[in-house]
Protein backbone atom coordinates (compact mmCIF):
# COMPACT_ATOMS: atom_id res chain seq x y z
CA UNK A 1 0.00 0.00 0.00
CA UNK A 2 1.45 3.33 -1.03
CA UNK A 3 1.91 5.99 1.59
CA UNK A 4 -0.94 8.49 1.97
CA UNK A 5 -3.39 6.37 0.01
CA UNK A 6 -6.93 6.22 1.37
CA UNK A 7 -7.95 3.11 -0.48
CA UNK A 8 -9.82 0.49 1.52
CA UNK A 9 -7.70 -2.30 0.18
CA UNK A 10 -5.43 -2.54 3.26
CA UNK A 11 -7.34 -4.06 6.15
CA UNK A 12 -10.83 -4.54 4.72
CA UNK A 13 -12.52 -2.99 7.74
CA UNK A 14 -15.92 -2.10 6.28
CA UNK A 15 -17.68 -4.99 7.97
CA UNK A 16 -16.94 -3.53 11.44
CA UNK A 17 -19.88 -1.57 12.92
CA UNK A 18 -17.55 0.72 14.90
CA UNK A 19 -15.74 3.58 13.18
CA UNK A 20 -12.16 2.50 12.50
CA UNK A 21 -9.25 4.71 11.47
CA UNK A 22 -5.75 3.69 10.46
CA UNK A 23 -3.25 6.45 11.20
CA UNK A 24 0.41 7.24 10.98
CA UNK A 25 2.22 8.30 14.14
CA UNK A 26 1.73 11.98 13.27
CA UNK A 27 -2.04 11.58 12.93
CA UNK A 28 -2.51 11.33 9.16
CA UNK A 29 -5.38 9.03 8.19
CA UNK A 30 -4.31 6.23 5.87
CA UNK A 31 -7.41 4.13 5.84
CA UNK A 32 -10.97 4.21 7.18
CA UNK A 33 -14.05 2.03 7.14
CA UNK A 34 -17.64 2.84 6.16
CA UNK A 35 -18.74 3.67 9.73
CA UNK A 36 -15.92 6.19 10.10
CA UNK A 37 -16.78 7.81 6.74
CA UNK A 38 -20.42 8.12 7.84
CA UNK A 39 -19.34 9.71 11.12
CA UNK A 40 -16.67 12.15 9.91
CA UNK A 41 -17.64 12.73 6.24
CA UNK A 42 -15.79 15.70 4.76
CA UNK A 43 -13.46 15.98 7.78
CA UNK A 44 -11.54 13.03 6.36
CA UNK A 45 -11.05 14.61 2.94
CA UNK A 46 -8.57 17.36 3.89
CA UNK A 47 -5.70 15.06 4.74
CA UNK A 48 -4.41 17.34 7.52
CA UNK A 49 -4.48 15.78 11.02
CA UNK A 50 -5.82 19.04 12.52
CA UNK A 51 -8.99 18.75 10.41
CA UNK A 52 -9.94 15.61 12.26
CA UNK A 53 -8.11 15.47 15.58
CA UNK A 54 -9.25 17.99 18.19
CA UNK A 55 -6.54 17.37 20.82
CA UNK A 56 -3.22 19.17 20.91
CA UNK A 57 -0.81 17.56 18.38
CA UNK A 58 1.59 16.80 21.22
CA UNK A 59 -1.14 14.86 23.05
CA UNK A 60 -2.44 12.76 20.19
CA UNK A 61 1.08 12.06 18.95
CA UNK A 62 2.06 10.76 22.41
CA UNK A 63 -1.03 8.59 22.47
CA UNK A 64 -0.34 7.20 19.00
CA UNK A 65 3.31 6.56 19.83
CA UNK A 66 2.38 4.62 22.97
CA UNK A 67 -0.25 2.65 21.10
CA UNK A 68 2.35 1.78 18.45
CA UNK A 69 4.37 -0.17 21.01
CA UNK A 70 2.11 -3.23 20.88
CA UNK A 71 -0.30 -5.04 18.59
CA UNK A 72 -2.50 -5.84 21.61
CA UNK A 73 -5.31 -3.27 21.92
CA UNK A 74 -5.04 -0.63 24.61
CA UNK A 75 -7.87 1.63 25.75
CA UNK A 76 -7.72 5.39 25.61
CA UNK A 77 -9.57 8.57 24.73
CA UNK A 78 -9.16 11.08 21.89
CA UNK A 79 -11.14 14.11 20.75
CA UNK A 80 -12.32 14.35 17.12
CA UNK A 81 -13.98 17.11 15.13
CA UNK A 82 -17.44 16.02 14.05
CA UNK A 83 -20.26 17.91 12.36
CA UNK A 84 -21.64 18.55 15.87
CA UNK A 85 -18.36 20.03 17.11
CA UNK A 86 -15.51 18.32 18.95
CA UNK A 87 -16.34 15.06 20.68
CA UNK A 88 -14.26 12.74 22.86
CA UNK A 89 -14.33 9.07 22.01
CA UNK A 90 -13.34 6.09 24.08
CA UNK A 91 -11.29 3.93 21.79
CA UNK A 92 -9.04 0.94 21.48
CA UNK A 93 -5.75 1.41 19.73
CA UNK A 94 -3.09 -1.04 18.54
CA UNK A 95 -0.16 -1.20 16.14
CA UNK A 96 -1.11 -2.50 12.75
CA UNK A 97 0.82 -5.56 11.64
CA UNK A 98 0.80 -4.28 8.06
CA UNK A 99 2.54 -1.03 8.73
CA UNK A 100 5.91 -1.47 7.19
CA UNK A 101 7.94 0.45 6.38
CA UNK A 102 5.83 3.19 8.05
CA UNK A 103 4.31 2.40 11.45
CA UNK A 104 0.50 2.48 11.46
CA UNK A 105 -1.90 2.53 14.37
CA UNK A 106 -5.44 1.19 14.14
CA UNK A 107 -8.03 3.08 16.17
CA UNK A 108 -11.41 1.56 16.91
CA UNK A 109 -13.80 4.21 18.20
CA UNK A 110 -16.33 3.06 20.77
CA UNK A 111 -19.59 4.87 20.12
CA UNK A 112 -20.68 7.00 23.08
CA UNK A 113 -23.67 5.39 24.67
CA UNK A 114 -22.75 1.91 23.57
CA UNK A 115 -19.45 1.92 25.39
CA UNK A 116 -19.80 -0.02 28.56
CA UNK A 117 -18.35 2.62 30.78
CA UNK A 118 -20.96 5.12 29.72
CA UNK A 119 -23.68 2.59 30.50
CA UNK A 120 -22.16 1.80 33.84
CA UNK A 121 -21.76 5.50 34.49
CA UNK A 122 -25.43 6.14 33.88
CA UNK A 123 -26.40 3.22 36.09
CA UNK A 124 -24.16 4.39 38.91
CA UNK A 125 -25.48 7.93 38.56
CA UNK A 126 -29.08 6.71 38.77
CA UNK A 127 -28.32 4.60 41.85
CA UNK A 128 -26.42 7.49 43.35
CA UNK A 129 -29.34 9.86 42.88
CA UNK A 130 -31.65 7.26 44.43
CA UNK A 131 -29.45 6.77 47.42
CA UNK A 132 -28.92 10.47 47.84
CA UNK A 133 -32.66 11.02 47.79
CA UNK A 134 -33.23 8.32 50.43
CA UNK A 135 -30.50 9.68 52.67
CA UNK A 136 -31.95 13.12 52.30
CA UNK A 137 -35.45 12.01 53.30
CA UNK A 138 -34.07 10.03 56.17
CA UNK A 139 -32.14 13.00 57.48
CA UNK A 140 -35.21 15.22 57.17
CA UNK A 141 -37.28 12.70 59.12
CA UNK A 142 -34.66 12.41 61.84
CA UNK A 143 -34.54 16.16 62.11
CA UNK A 144 -38.35 16.34 62.40
CA UNK A 145 -38.29 13.66 65.09
CA UNK A 146 -35.55 15.48 66.96
CA UNK A 147 -37.56 18.70 66.82
CA UNK A 148 -40.64 16.91 68.18
CA UNK A 149 -38.59 15.53 71.06
CA UNK A 150 -37.23 18.97 71.83
CA UNK A 151 -40.77 20.37 71.82
CA UNK A 152 -42.04 17.55 74.03
CA UNK A 153 -39.26 18.18 76.52
CA UNK A 154 -39.99 21.87 76.48
CA UNK A 155 -43.63 21.08 77.17
CA UNK A 156 -42.77 18.75 80.05
CA UNK A 157 -40.50 21.41 81.48
CA UNK A 158 -43.29 23.97 81.36
CA UNK A 159 -45.84 21.65 82.93
CA UNK A 160 -43.43 21.06 85.79
CA UNK A 161 -42.93 24.79 86.23
CA UNK A 162 -46.66 25.36 86.14
CA UNK A 163 -47.23 22.77 88.87
CA UNK A 164 -44.67 24.54 91.00
CA UNK A 165 -46.41 27.82 90.27
CA UNK A 166 -49.74 26.36 91.40
CA UNK A 167 -48.07 25.10 94.59
CA UNK A 168 -46.83 28.57 95.47
CA UNK A 169 -50.21 30.07 94.55
CA UNK A 170 -51.98 27.75 97.02
CA UNK A 171 -49.45 28.69 99.68
CA UNK A 172 -50.07 32.37 99.03
CA UNK A 173 -53.86 31.82 99.06
CA UNK A 174 -53.65 29.95 102.38
CA UNK A 175 -51.43 32.44 104.14
CA UNK A 176 -53.32 34.43 106.72
CA UNK A 177 -55.77 31.55 107.31
CA UNK A 178 -54.70 29.62 110.36
CA UNK A 179 -57.75 27.42 110.68
CA UNK A 180 -56.78 23.74 110.84
CA UNK A 181 -59.25 22.90 108.00
CA UNK A 182 -57.56 25.25 105.56
CA UNK A 183 -54.15 24.01 106.62
CA UNK A 184 -55.22 20.39 106.07
CA UNK A 185 -56.63 21.12 102.61
CA UNK A 186 -53.50 22.98 101.59
CA UNK A 187 -51.25 20.20 102.91
CA UNK A 188 -53.19 17.55 100.98
CA UNK A 189 -53.11 19.64 97.85
CA UNK A 190 -49.39 20.27 98.23
CA UNK A 191 -48.69 16.56 98.59
CA UNK A 192 -50.64 15.78 95.44
CA UNK A 193 -49.05 18.56 93.43
CA UNK A 194 -45.63 17.48 94.63
CA UNK A 195 -46.27 13.93 93.41
CA UNK A 196 -47.34 15.24 90.01
CA UNK A 197 -44.28 17.50 89.85
CA UNK A 198 -42.05 14.54 90.67
CA UNK A 199 -43.52 12.52 87.80
CA UNK A 200 -43.11 15.46 85.45
CA UNK A 201 -39.59 16.05 86.61
CA UNK A 202 -38.65 12.42 86.07
CA UNK A 203 -40.02 12.49 82.53
CA UNK A 204 -38.24 15.68 81.78
CA UNK A 205 -34.90 14.40 83.06
CA UNK A 206 -35.03 10.94 81.49
CA UNK A 207 -33.06 10.05 78.35
CA UNK A 208 -36.19 8.67 76.80
CA UNK A 209 -38.81 11.31 76.20
CA UNK A 210 -41.84 9.17 76.94
CA UNK A 211 -40.79 6.61 79.52
CA UNK A 212 -39.43 6.58 83.06
CA UNK A 213 -37.51 3.91 84.94
CA UNK A 214 -39.65 2.85 87.90
CA UNK A 215 -37.02 2.19 90.54
CA UNK A 216 -35.33 5.57 90.70
CA UNK A 217 -38.54 7.39 90.00
CA UNK A 218 -40.59 5.69 92.75
CA UNK A 219 -37.79 6.07 95.25
CA UNK A 220 -37.99 9.85 94.76
CA UNK A 221 -41.78 9.88 94.99
CA UNK A 222 -41.85 7.69 98.13
CA UNK A 223 -39.20 9.77 99.92
CA UNK A 224 -41.00 13.02 99.10
CA UNK A 225 -44.38 11.70 100.29
CA UNK A 226 -42.86 10.22 103.45
CA UNK A 227 -41.08 13.45 104.33
CA UNK A 228 -44.18 15.56 103.60
CA UNK A 229 -46.32 13.41 105.91
CA UNK A 230 -43.71 13.37 108.66
CA UNK A 231 -42.97 9.65 108.38
CA UNK A 232 -39.51 9.72 106.85
CA UNK A 233 -38.16 7.34 109.48
CA UNK A 234 -41.04 4.90 109.42
CA UNK A 235 -41.11 4.29 105.67
CA UNK A 236 -38.92 1.61 104.11
CA UNK A 237 -39.16 0.37 100.56
CA UNK A 238 -38.28 -2.43 98.23
CA UNK A 239 -38.54 -1.41 94.60
CA UNK A 240 -37.95 -3.43 91.45
CA UNK A 241 -37.31 -1.79 88.11
CA UNK A 242 -39.57 -1.45 85.10
CA UNK A 243 -40.12 0.94 82.23
CA UNK A 244 -43.18 3.06 82.97
CA UNK A 245 -45.07 5.09 80.41
CA UNK A 246 -45.60 8.75 81.16
CA UNK A 247 -49.28 8.05 81.98
CA UNK A 248 -48.37 5.23 84.36
CA UNK A 249 -45.74 7.38 86.03
CA UNK A 250 -48.15 10.24 86.63
CA UNK A 251 -50.87 8.00 88.07
CA UNK A 252 -48.51 5.92 90.16
CA UNK A 253 -46.94 9.03 91.71
CA UNK A 254 -50.34 10.26 92.89
CA UNK A 255 -51.37 6.76 94.08
CA UNK A 256 -48.16 6.42 96.10
CA UNK A 257 -48.69 9.84 97.60
CA UNK A 258 -52.24 9.03 98.72
CA UNK A 259 -51.45 5.63 100.17
CA UNK A 260 -48.31 6.75 101.97
CA UNK A 261 -50.10 9.82 103.35
CA UNK A 262 -52.93 7.58 104.59
CA UNK A 263 -50.53 5.12 106.21
CA UNK A 264 -48.76 7.96 107.99
CA UNK A 265 -51.99 9.65 108.95
CA UNK A 266 -54.23 6.71 109.86
CA UNK A 267 -51.91 3.73 110.15
CA UNK A 268 -49.83 4.59 113.18
CA UNK A 269 -50.32 3.81 116.83
CA UNK A 270 -49.18 6.75 118.98
CA UNK A 271 -47.10 7.98 116.05
CA UNK A 272 -45.21 4.65 116.02
CA UNK A 273 -45.13 2.01 113.31
CA UNK A 274 -43.59 0.65 110.17
CA UNK A 275 -44.64 1.41 106.60
CA UNK A 276 -43.36 -0.83 103.84
CA UNK A 277 -43.65 0.29 100.22
CA UNK A 278 -43.13 -2.38 97.56
CA UNK A 279 -43.02 -2.29 93.78
CA UNK A 280 -42.72 -5.65 92.06
CA UNK A 281 -42.41 -6.33 88.32
CA UNK A 282 -43.49 -9.84 87.41
CA UNK A 283 -42.78 -9.79 83.66
CA UNK A 284 -44.95 -6.77 82.91
CA UNK A 285 -47.47 -7.55 85.71
CA UNK A 286 -46.87 -4.72 88.16
CA UNK A 287 -47.77 -4.70 91.86
CA UNK A 288 -47.50 -1.55 93.97
CA UNK A 289 -48.18 -1.98 97.66
CA UNK A 290 -48.20 0.14 100.81
CA UNK A 291 -48.47 -1.83 104.07
CA UNK A 292 -48.60 -0.50 107.61
CA UNK A 293 -48.92 -2.23 110.97
CA UNK A 294 -51.52 0.17 112.32
CA UNK A 295 -55.08 -0.43 113.53
CA UNK A 296 -56.38 -1.64 110.18
CA UNK A 297 -59.25 -0.23 108.21
CA UNK A 298 -62.98 -0.79 108.28
CA UNK A 299 -65.24 -1.20 105.27
CA UNK A 300 -67.22 1.78 106.49
CA UNK A 301 -64.17 3.99 106.43
CA UNK A 302 -63.39 2.88 102.87
CA UNK A 303 -66.87 3.73 101.66
CA UNK A 304 -66.72 7.40 102.71
CA UNK A 305 -63.31 7.90 101.33
CA UNK A 306 -61.94 10.83 99.28
CA UNK A 307 -58.22 10.05 98.90
CA UNK A 308 -58.98 6.41 98.26
CA UNK A 309 -61.62 7.42 95.70
CA UNK A 310 -58.86 9.31 93.90
CA UNK A 311 -56.69 6.17 93.99
CA UNK A 312 -59.56 4.13 92.45
CA UNK A 313 -59.98 6.73 89.72
CA UNK A 314 -56.26 6.68 88.98
CA UNK A 315 -56.34 2.88 88.86
CA UNK A 316 -58.99 3.03 86.15
CA UNK A 317 -56.72 5.30 84.11
CA UNK A 318 -53.97 2.68 84.01
CA UNK A 319 -56.30 -0.32 83.79
CA UNK A 320 -55.45 -1.46 87.31
CA UNK A 321 -57.38 -2.29 90.46
CA UNK A 322 -57.02 -1.51 94.16
CA UNK A 323 -57.31 -4.17 96.88
CA UNK A 324 -57.50 -3.14 100.52
CA UNK A 325 -56.89 -5.59 103.32
CA UNK A 326 -57.40 -4.24 106.81
CA UNK A 327 -57.12 -7.41 108.87
CA UNK A 328 -53.59 -7.01 110.13
CA UNK A 329 -52.53 -3.45 109.72
CA UNK A 330 -53.63 -1.96 106.42
CA UNK A 331 -52.33 -3.35 103.15
CA UNK A 332 -53.29 -1.47 99.98
CA UNK A 333 -52.30 -3.17 96.75
CA UNK A 334 -52.54 -1.78 93.22
CA UNK A 335 -52.08 -4.21 90.35
CA UNK A 336 -51.78 -3.26 86.69
CA UNK A 337 -50.18 -4.44 83.49
CA UNK A 338 -47.43 -2.68 81.56
CA UNK A 339 -48.75 -0.08 79.16
CA UNK A 340 -47.43 -1.82 76.02
CA UNK A 341 -49.88 -4.71 76.62
CA UNK A 342 -52.75 -2.27 76.50
CA UNK A 343 -51.38 -0.64 73.40
CA UNK A 344 -51.01 -4.00 71.72
CA UNK A 345 -54.66 -4.76 72.38
CA UNK A 346 -55.84 -1.58 70.70
Amino acid sequence: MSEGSKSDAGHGLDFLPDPVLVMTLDGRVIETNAAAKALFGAKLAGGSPADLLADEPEDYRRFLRNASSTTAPRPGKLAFHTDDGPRRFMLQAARSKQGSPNVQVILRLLQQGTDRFAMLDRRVKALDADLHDKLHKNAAMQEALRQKQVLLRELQHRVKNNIQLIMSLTKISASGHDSPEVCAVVETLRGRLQAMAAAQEALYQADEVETVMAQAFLEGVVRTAARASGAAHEVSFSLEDAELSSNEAHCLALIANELITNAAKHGMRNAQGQILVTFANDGGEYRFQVADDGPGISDKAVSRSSGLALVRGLCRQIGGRLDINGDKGTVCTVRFRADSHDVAKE
Partner: protein
Amino acid sequence: MKDSVRVQDAPVELERDLFLRVLLRELSGTLEDVVGLAEASGYISVVGGAMGERFNAEYRRALSVDILTRDQVRDVLVDLKRRIQGDFYVMEEHEDRVVLGNRACPFGKLVEGRPSLCMMTSNVFGSIAAQNLGYARVDIQESIASGHAGCRIVVNLTPNAGTGPNAREYFRIEE
Protein backbone atom coordinates in the same frame (compact mmCIF):
# COMPACT_ATOMS: atom_id res chain seq x y z
CA MET B 1 -14.47 -9.14 83.08
CA LYS B 2 -12.36 -10.33 80.16
CA ASP B 3 -9.07 -8.53 79.56
CA SER B 4 -9.64 -6.48 76.45
CA VAL B 5 -6.92 -6.19 73.80
CA ARG B 6 -5.81 -2.67 73.02
CA VAL B 7 -6.60 -1.66 69.43
CA GLN B 8 -2.91 -0.95 68.77
CA ASP B 9 -2.05 -4.48 69.90
CA ALA B 10 -4.82 -6.29 68.05
CA PRO B 11 -3.48 -9.12 65.87
CA VAL B 12 -4.54 -7.60 62.55
CA GLU B 13 -2.44 -8.43 59.51
CA LEU B 14 -1.87 -5.04 57.90
CA GLU B 15 1.09 -3.00 56.72
CA ARG B 16 1.71 -0.74 53.75
CA ASP B 17 2.89 -3.39 51.30
CA LEU B 18 -0.04 -5.69 52.04
CA PHE B 19 -2.42 -2.76 51.90
CA LEU B 20 -1.19 -1.82 48.42
CA ARG B 21 -1.39 -5.41 47.19
CA VAL B 22 -4.95 -5.75 48.49
CA LEU B 23 -5.77 -2.44 46.82
CA LEU B 24 -4.42 -3.73 43.49
CA ARG B 25 -6.25 -7.00 43.86
CA GLU B 26 -9.57 -5.26 44.49
CA LEU B 27 -8.97 -2.70 41.78
CA SER B 28 -8.13 -5.30 39.14
CA GLY B 29 -11.00 -7.49 40.33
CA THR B 30 -13.40 -4.59 39.94
CA LEU B 31 -12.05 -3.85 36.47
CA GLU B 32 -12.38 -7.50 35.43
CA ASP B 33 -15.97 -7.56 36.69
CA VAL B 34 -17.00 -4.27 35.16
CA VAL B 35 -15.38 -4.22 31.73
CA GLY B 36 -14.40 -7.85 31.33
CA LEU B 37 -11.04 -9.58 31.38
CA ALA B 38 -9.95 -8.44 27.90
CA GLU B 39 -10.53 -4.75 28.52
CA ALA B 40 -9.25 -4.90 32.08
CA SER B 41 -6.06 -6.38 30.63
CA GLY B 42 -6.00 -3.41 28.26
CA TYR B 43 -6.01 -0.95 31.14
CA ILE B 44 -3.35 -2.85 33.03
CA SER B 45 -1.34 -2.87 29.79
CA VAL B 46 -1.37 0.91 29.55
CA VAL B 47 0.01 1.07 33.09
CA GLY B 48 2.49 -1.76 32.47
CA GLY B 49 3.77 -0.09 29.30
CA ALA B 50 4.38 3.19 31.12
CA MET B 51 6.13 1.40 33.98
CA GLY B 52 8.29 -0.57 31.51
CA GLU B 53 9.45 2.67 29.90
CA ARG B 54 10.26 4.14 33.26
CA PHE B 55 12.27 1.17 34.52
CA ASN B 56 14.02 0.89 31.16
CA ALA B 57 15.20 4.48 31.54
CA GLU B 58 16.23 3.78 35.15
CA TYR B 59 18.39 0.78 34.26
CA ARG B 60 19.94 2.53 31.27
CA ARG B 61 20.87 5.46 33.48
CA ALA B 62 22.16 3.27 36.31
CA LEU B 63 24.26 1.16 33.91
CA SER B 64 25.39 4.28 32.00
CA VAL B 65 24.38 2.90 28.61
CA ASP B 66 22.24 4.31 25.80
CA ILE B 67 20.80 0.94 25.01
CA LEU B 68 20.80 -2.42 26.80
CA THR B 69 22.36 -5.48 25.17
CA ARG B 70 20.47 -8.71 24.85
CA ASP B 71 22.25 -10.16 27.89
CA GLN B 72 21.58 -7.02 29.89
CA VAL B 73 17.89 -7.16 28.94
CA ARG B 74 17.66 -10.75 30.16
CA ASP B 75 19.41 -9.88 33.44
CA VAL B 76 17.31 -6.74 33.91
CA LEU B 77 14.06 -8.71 33.60
CA VAL B 78 15.18 -11.16 36.29
CA ASP B 79 16.68 -8.43 38.49
CA LEU B 80 13.64 -6.20 38.26
CA LYS B 81 11.44 -9.02 39.52
CA ARG B 82 13.91 -9.91 42.26
CA ARG B 83 13.80 -6.34 43.58
CA ILE B 84 10.02 -6.56 44.01
CA GLN B 85 10.19 -10.01 45.62
CA GLY B 86 9.40 -12.13 42.63
CA ASP B 87 11.50 -15.27 42.08
CA PHE B 88 12.25 -15.29 38.36
CA TYR B 89 15.03 -17.29 36.72
CA VAL B 90 16.24 -18.16 33.23
CA MET B 91 14.85 -21.57 32.24
CA GLU B 92 16.09 -21.72 28.66
CA GLU B 93 17.97 -19.44 26.37
CA HIS B 94 17.85 -19.73 22.57
CA GLU B 95 19.01 -17.64 19.64
CA ASP B 96 15.51 -16.17 19.14
CA ARG B 97 13.97 -16.35 22.61
CA VAL B 98 14.50 -16.41 26.36
CA VAL B 99 12.28 -18.59 28.53
CA LEU B 100 11.82 -17.31 32.08
CA GLY B 101 10.37 -19.23 35.01
CA ASN B 102 8.92 -17.82 38.21
CA ARG B 103 8.28 -19.44 41.60
CA ALA B 104 6.87 -16.44 43.50
CA CYS B 105 4.65 -13.63 42.30
CA PRO B 106 5.43 -10.12 43.60
CA PHE B 107 1.72 -9.77 44.29
CA GLY B 108 1.89 -12.88 46.50
CA LYS B 109 -1.20 -14.98 46.99
CA LEU B 110 -3.30 -11.94 46.13
CA VAL B 111 -2.69 -12.52 42.40
CA GLU B 112 -4.71 -15.74 42.34
CA GLY B 113 -7.73 -15.38 40.07
CA ARG B 114 -6.49 -12.04 38.72
CA PRO B 115 -4.94 -12.87 35.31
CA SER B 116 -5.29 -9.25 34.22
CA LEU B 117 -2.39 -8.46 36.57
CA CYS B 118 -0.13 -10.65 34.39
CA MET B 119 -0.39 -7.87 31.82
CA MET B 120 1.90 -5.96 34.13
CA THR B 121 4.66 -8.50 33.53
CA SER B 122 3.87 -8.89 29.84
CA ASN B 123 4.01 -5.13 29.23
CA VAL B 124 6.99 -4.36 31.45
CA PHE B 125 9.01 -7.23 29.88
CA GLY B 126 7.74 -6.48 26.38
CA SER B 127 8.38 -2.77 26.70
CA ILE B 128 11.94 -3.14 28.01
CA ALA B 129 12.86 -5.85 25.52
CA ALA B 130 11.36 -4.01 22.54
CA GLN B 131 12.87 -0.64 23.48
CA ASN B 132 16.32 -2.16 23.45
CA LEU B 133 16.12 -5.00 20.93
CA GLY B 134 13.43 -3.63 18.58
CA TYR B 135 10.87 -6.35 18.98
CA ALA B 136 9.48 -8.71 21.61
CA ARG B 137 6.62 -11.15 21.72
CA VAL B 138 5.79 -12.07 25.30
CA ASP B 139 3.89 -15.31 25.74
CA ILE B 140 2.75 -16.13 29.27
CA GLN B 141 2.20 -19.86 28.87
CA GLU B 142 1.61 -20.65 32.52
CA SER B 143 0.83 -18.32 35.42
CA ILE B 144 0.24 -18.45 39.16
CA ALA B 145 -2.64 -16.04 38.59
CA SER B 146 -4.51 -18.64 36.56
CA GLY B 147 -3.77 -21.49 38.93
CA HIS B 148 -0.39 -22.92 37.87
CA ALA B 149 2.28 -23.70 40.44
CA GLY B 150 4.64 -21.26 38.73
CA CYS B 151 4.85 -19.00 35.70
CA ARG B 152 6.41 -19.82 32.33
CA ILE B 153 7.10 -16.78 30.20
CA VAL B 154 8.56 -16.93 26.72
CA VAL B 155 10.13 -13.71 25.45
CA ASN B 156 10.51 -14.10 21.67
CA LEU B 157 12.90 -11.67 20.09
CA THR B 158 12.21 -12.21 16.38
CA PRO B 159 8.90 -11.59 14.64
CA ASN B 160 8.75 -14.59 12.34
CA ALA B 161 7.60 -17.37 14.64
CA GLY B 162 3.87 -18.20 15.02
CA THR B 163 1.91 -16.31 17.66
CA GLY B 164 0.31 -18.16 20.60
CA PRO B 165 -3.09 -17.25 22.06
CA ASN B 166 -1.63 -15.46 25.11
CA ALA B 167 1.22 -13.84 23.23
CA ARG B 168 1.46 -10.10 22.86
CA GLU B 169 3.77 -8.30 20.47
CA TYR B 170 5.78 -5.22 21.42
CA PHE B 171 7.74 -2.81 19.24
CA ARG B 172 10.25 -0.07 19.84
CA ILE B 173 8.45 3.25 20.05
CA GLU B 174 9.66 5.39 17.17
CA GLU B 175 10.83 8.85 18.17
